């Protein structure tokens, strides 16, 4: 919402307005992390010899996907996702104006720079794009079926990988069969396969995604022409799905809560500190078996779901930690007992979607109406993918990938390579491959590997650096911003608009309201609860307003407790925004600094319709 003053009134003017963000080459590292560059792969760093090239580009921090400092192994996320995004734009569909994203890791945080395509080249790409993307749009559903098969096969292959102890001797029957290959061959090959499958999962992720966004963008642009200034959330509401697989995990929890009440098991599910023992107590109760059968049915695949976002190796998954889903189920049971309505109000959402769509459509003349209907039809066809892929890739595929990675780390930990089970994450993936070979060749020789002497002090050094980096919040952007932000995906997905960049530069002092994006309509007032990581979700109390650097769709179960959500980062098509709309929860995203400016307990007013957050005390 733009507010202009015709006549100047007394307003705060911040001293020395910045016109540019700091250069990555001039930012001092936090104390204790001076040598941070030594632990990341060379290809994600701002290299000294490329200073002129790198400083000429505008980089924005992607704290929406990577809100906390990455460990060296975790750079696989930004590296593979930006590579795969690029391949479909540049090499597969030839999307006219969009290349990929360049990514850098700077002081532990991820920065992107959108690769733009020159006008002439963009025009030259059109015929190929029409043919290739046209084929996908025309055969969308069939190709999506194929896609699902590919994803399930990738997940199946990941699940089948085993990283277990190497045997004392190879079995005798291998001798008779003349196999001549050892367990290390399988182990090393398994590691290569693990990385290749992760790469594959990210290719699956982007195969349909940008086409989905492109169709949405086409509708979005047309609406912007017909109805100048139409709110983003209005267009989002027109395509809003209601029966999404992304919401299935939460829907399953609600189903299990209702079943528990029905079977008179609810008292067992509201005990404090639920866990495996809770399942045991249900098992021995009358009717408990029925409930456990339902639990198992829901668990595969819907509990391949993390309260994080799938980009961190130590994200906790429901499947592995029953305490997570059981805690949410306990919550729902308590709400059911209070007579609350816990289901998403699907019919209301549908009615609202149809009302909004119908009212705009009625304002168009017949020719416009035909175009509108056609664009809307396509956007609605592709839109479910935009939401559902998140379950299949970020949650399910990546959940298995990280679990296997931790299995391998634990194997080498048992061999003395590092003090903590998950310490392999302090190695880059290439270093990890070296460590694995070191381990395998020591086993083959029958003498000690080098790693147990080399890695523990190095891991300790890196652990200290990661901790030091984490003590500082990242700059929202680097270098001089462009006069205007026009790259559509940055705007739609990250909420990086010219206005947002200006407000970052202004380094808004602590007077007045926070302005963000109107991501989900409605107004609410209440005490704030600042949550920096999924681990703090347990602290959220009924009736609070959730304030976080970024939220994940998997936080949905706590949405039942809160009145509204505010984030530092994210556009109106970010997953958090989509979920808040589905849960009819007011949300303001992309405020830049809410999680640092607001204190837990402070009363705030959130206006998700206008995109403002007012501090009331």
């Amino acid at each position: 919402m733009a507010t202009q003053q015709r006549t100047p009134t007394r307003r705060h003017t911040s001293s020395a307005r910045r016109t540019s963000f700091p250069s990555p080459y001039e930012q001092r590292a936090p104390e204790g992390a001076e040598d941070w560059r030594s632990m990341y792969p060379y290809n994600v760093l701002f290299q000294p010899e490329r200073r002129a090239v790198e400083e000429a580009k505008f980089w924005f921090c992607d704290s929406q996907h990577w809100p906390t400092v990455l460990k060296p192994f975790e750079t696989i996320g930004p590296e593979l996702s930006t590579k795969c995004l690029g391949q479909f734009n540049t090499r597969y569909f030839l999307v006219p104006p969009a290349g990929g994203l360049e990514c850098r890791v700077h002081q532990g945080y991820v920065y992107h720079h959108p690769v733009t395509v020159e006008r002439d080249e963009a025009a030259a790409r059109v015929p190929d794009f029409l043919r290739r993307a046209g084929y996908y749009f025309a055969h969308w559903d069939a190709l999506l079926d194929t896609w699902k098969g590919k994803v399930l096969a990738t997940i199946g292959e990941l699940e089948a990988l085993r990283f277990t102890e190497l045997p004392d001797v190879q079995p005798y029957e291998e001798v008779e069969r003349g196999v001549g290959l050892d367990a290390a061959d399988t182990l090393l090959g398994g590691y290569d396969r693990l990385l290749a499958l992760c790469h594959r999962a990210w290719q699956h992720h982007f195969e349909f995604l940008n086409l989905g966004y492109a169709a949405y963008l086409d509708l979005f642009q047309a609406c912007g022409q017909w109805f100048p200034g139409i709110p983003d959330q209005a267009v989002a509401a027109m395509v809003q799905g209601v029966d999404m697989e992304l919401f299935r995990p939460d829907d399953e929890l609600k189903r299990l809560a209702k079943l528990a009440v029905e079977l008179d098991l609810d008292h067992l599910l509201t005990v404090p500190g639920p866990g495996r023992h809770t399942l045991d107590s249900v098992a021995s109760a009358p009717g408990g078996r029925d409930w456990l059968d339902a639990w198992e049915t829901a668990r595969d695949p819907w509990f391949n779901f993390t309260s994080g976002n799938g980009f961190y190796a130590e994200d906790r998954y429901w499947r592995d930690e029953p305490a997570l889903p059981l805690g949410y189920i306990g919550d729902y049971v308590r709400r059911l007992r209070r007579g609350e309505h816990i289901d998403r109000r699907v019919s209301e959402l549908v009615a609202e979607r149809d009302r909004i769509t119908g009212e705009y459509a009625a304002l168009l003349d017949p020719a416009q109406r035909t175009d509108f209907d056609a664009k809307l039809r396509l956007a609605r066809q592709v839109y479910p993918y935009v939401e559902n892929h998140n379950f299949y890739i970020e949650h399910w595929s990546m959940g298995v990938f990280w679990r296997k990675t931790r299995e391998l780390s634990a194997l080498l930990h048992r061999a003395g390579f590092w003090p903590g089970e998950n310490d392999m994450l302090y190695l880059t993936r290439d270093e990890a491959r070296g460590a694995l070979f070191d381990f395998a060749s020591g086993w083959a020789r029958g003498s000690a590997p080098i790693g147990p002497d080399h890695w523990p002090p190095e891991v300790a050094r890196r652990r200290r650096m990661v901790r030091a980096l984490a003590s500082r919040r990242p700059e929202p952007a680097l270098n001089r911003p462009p006069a205007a932000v026009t790259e559509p995906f940055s705007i739609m997905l990250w909420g990086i608009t010219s206005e947002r960049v200006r407000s970052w530069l202004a380094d808004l002092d602590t007077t007045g309201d926070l302005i963000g994006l109107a991501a989900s309509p409605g107004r609410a007032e209440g005490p704030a609860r600042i949550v920096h990581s999924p681990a703090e979700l347990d602290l959220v109390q009924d009736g609070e307003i959730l304030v976080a650097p970024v939220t994940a769709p998997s936080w949905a179960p706590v949405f039942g407790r809160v009145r509204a959500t505010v984030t530092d980062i994210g556009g109106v098509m970010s997953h958090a925004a989509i979920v808040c709309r589905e849960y009819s929860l007011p949300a303001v995203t992309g405020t830049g600094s809410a999680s640092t400016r607001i204190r837990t307990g402070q009363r705030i007013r959130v206006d998700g319709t206008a995109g403002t957050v007012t501090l009331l005390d």
Partner: protein
Amino acid sequence: MADQYTVAFDSGAAPFTARVGGKCAALLTMTGRGVPVPPGFAVTTDAFDAALDGGGLRARIGSLLAGLDLSDTADTERRAAEVRGLVTDRPVPPPVATAVTAAYRVLGAAQDVPVAVRSSAGTEDLPAASFAGQYDTYLGVRGADAVVDAVRRCWASLWTARAITYRAAGGMPERGLSMAVGVQSMVDARTAGVAMTVNPADGDPSKIVIDAAWGLGEPVMSGETTPDHYVVDKVLLVPLKTTLSPQHHELVVAPDGHGLLRRAVEDARRGRACLEPAEVTAVAELAKRVERHYGCPQDVEWVIARDAAPLPDSGPRVLLLQARPETFWSRRPRARAEVVPGAGVSSIADTMLGLGTLPT
């Protein structure tokens, strides 16, 4: 209540414009639809006719205006003033005065409430087709006698030089002129203004634009003050753009209820938006409701009372003072927006090539 000479807005009577004029017809209709409208009544065209037809007044007016040369502005002014004098000097017929007094008493049983007395002429049914603000309006009128007098002055305002010239230019006959008058409780306004259900700047029908000022809305209609300006999305009722103009004075009902008072706006309110976000939404909702009933863009006047308590479940209480069809864009085609036609991949490609100009 309704009788031959007065029709209360909440009487459920049919809103015949020939009887109550355009302004009161809209208020009758909207009151009947449950839209919050301050209580009031129409003084019918029958009352006007009773006053004019008694004592051959129409014939005398006709002869006063016979052979008028409109290019002689001084003469036109003089004759017009004489006609108005004829109308205002003559007592209102007792049955009419009695009916108006009775209807006025209903508005404030125990005391004389301040009211607004507005001319309600003007639709195709009444030959005195008008433009906004052509005929008189009296605000802050208190007491039955004062109300009856204000009604008579509204009648007389049919014969300003400007109105006579306008009718002549439009080829409208002077014979058979009639006018209804609306009498409505004054609202002690905290904020008031106008709203239009189409963007007057470009004819965009997906917008509602609101002009608002502190106090009564008259300075907004007359253009004496620069109001705060809000552009609202019509479907989501979200404010899209707000342009604030600090107002230094406001017009309010005088403390004794007689007439109006122009006073300084204190510092605390001066630079502040005179509508809270929830109030912007409520005003837009009201305008949208009126448009929905009439099926065409509307131009409405609204007010929020100083002591208005928010209504449960529906936010701030906004009252409707007037509604009329918007005439400019409703009669013109809008410039067609340049949209990449069709759908599917070719329009996507075209859209993408135009992305360099994406508004941010």
